[in-house]
């Protein structure tokens, strides 16, 4: 699926470049995009090192499994395949909490850790497990309490009330998250009927 999308984006882009005569822009965009990707990755190093270092302490001290324990009832319903005291649940929950507060930078390394744990649970296979799909789906919707970036843009353009969209954003993201869980469940049932995974 991702292979197809990737090739399609590039080929359709190149085709349009021929039709529209935008080949010059496209050439520039190619290298700009590559550069941006490396900049993002390098920029992630500082945050990843710091957060993963801290989270290692939390993992060793048992704080993560304590968190997992606390939210066990909800998480168990959403991730039925993860054992209830597994560190993956702790990472999943801390990732969700970081996302809620608009701490995207803090959420990413936690999410990656969660994925590593889920992969271990899945016997290091190359295919995503059911829990991985659920987790990633939850992250693409992600409940938001504080959309920090948007608020700062609204402030820049002199909004009378920059924070007034917190309510609408929260409700929209909450409903999106609930829908993501339901859609994910529906796809899982469909997969099982087909006899896959």
């Amino acid at each position: 699926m991702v292979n197809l999308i990737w090739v399609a984006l590039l080929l359709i882009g190149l085709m349009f470049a021929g039709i529209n005569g935008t080949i010059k822009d496209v050439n520039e965009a190619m290298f700009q995009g590559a550069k941006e990707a490396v900049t993002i990755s390098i920029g992630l190093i500082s945050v990843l090192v710091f957060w993963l270092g801290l989270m290692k302490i939390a993992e060793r001290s048992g704080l993560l499994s304590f968190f997992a324990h606390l939210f066990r009832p909800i998480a168990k319903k959403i991730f039925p395949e993860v054992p209830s005291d597994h560190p993956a649940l702790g990472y999943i929950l801390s990732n969700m909490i970081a996302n809620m507060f608009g701490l995207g930078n803090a959420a990413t390394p936690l999410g990656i850790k969660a994925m590593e744990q889920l992969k271990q649970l899945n016997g290091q296979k190359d295919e995503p497990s059911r829990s991985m799909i659920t987790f990633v789906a939850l992250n693409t919707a992600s409940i938001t309490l504080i959309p920090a970036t948007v608020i700062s843009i609204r402030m820049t353009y002199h909004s009378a009330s920059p924070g007034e969209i917190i309510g609408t954003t929260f409700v929209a993201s909450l409903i999106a998250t609930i829908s993501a869980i339901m859609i994910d469940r529906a796809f899982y049932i469909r997969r099982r009927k087909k006899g896959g995974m």
Partner: protein
Amino acid sequence: MYVIQFLSLWLIPMVIACILLHGTYKRVPTYEAFVEGGKEGIQIAFSLIPYLVGMLVAVSVFRASGALDFFISYIKPLIIPFGLPPEVVPLAIIRPISGTASLGMVTDLIATYGPDSFIGRLASTIQGSTETTLYVLTVYFGAVGIRKMGDALKVGLLADLVSFIVSFIIVLWMFGK
């Protein structure tokens, strides 16, 4: 509002303090554990590079060639009957694909129509209420070396669609046109 501002400012420091206190209390070798965990961070960041380069180049080419604008112009007439302002349609399409591109669009919409207009509020809500699905998938699956995405992309995109529709309804309901 002040409570939320206070919380967002103090959340990270409080989490850090909690982790350090709890670690020390449980006699974890804190500094050594920190360094050990940090090393993993470097590895992860480097292994991400090829995934991000591949995806961002493709998206940039698609946008710069004018292909994106072309598809948007076809989708526009389908949406106008529902009362959706066509100005936000490109944003809804680009939101799951590129976070920086959509942020650029939101800034542009807010600058053009004003932050307190219907379009400004709707754009703000759309931007804030979902994550960049393609980026999340690329980073999370990429970091652990999974190449197949299974149903994750479909679920993510459908959830984005729901979020977009809900944003429209909620903004309309709370602020009116």
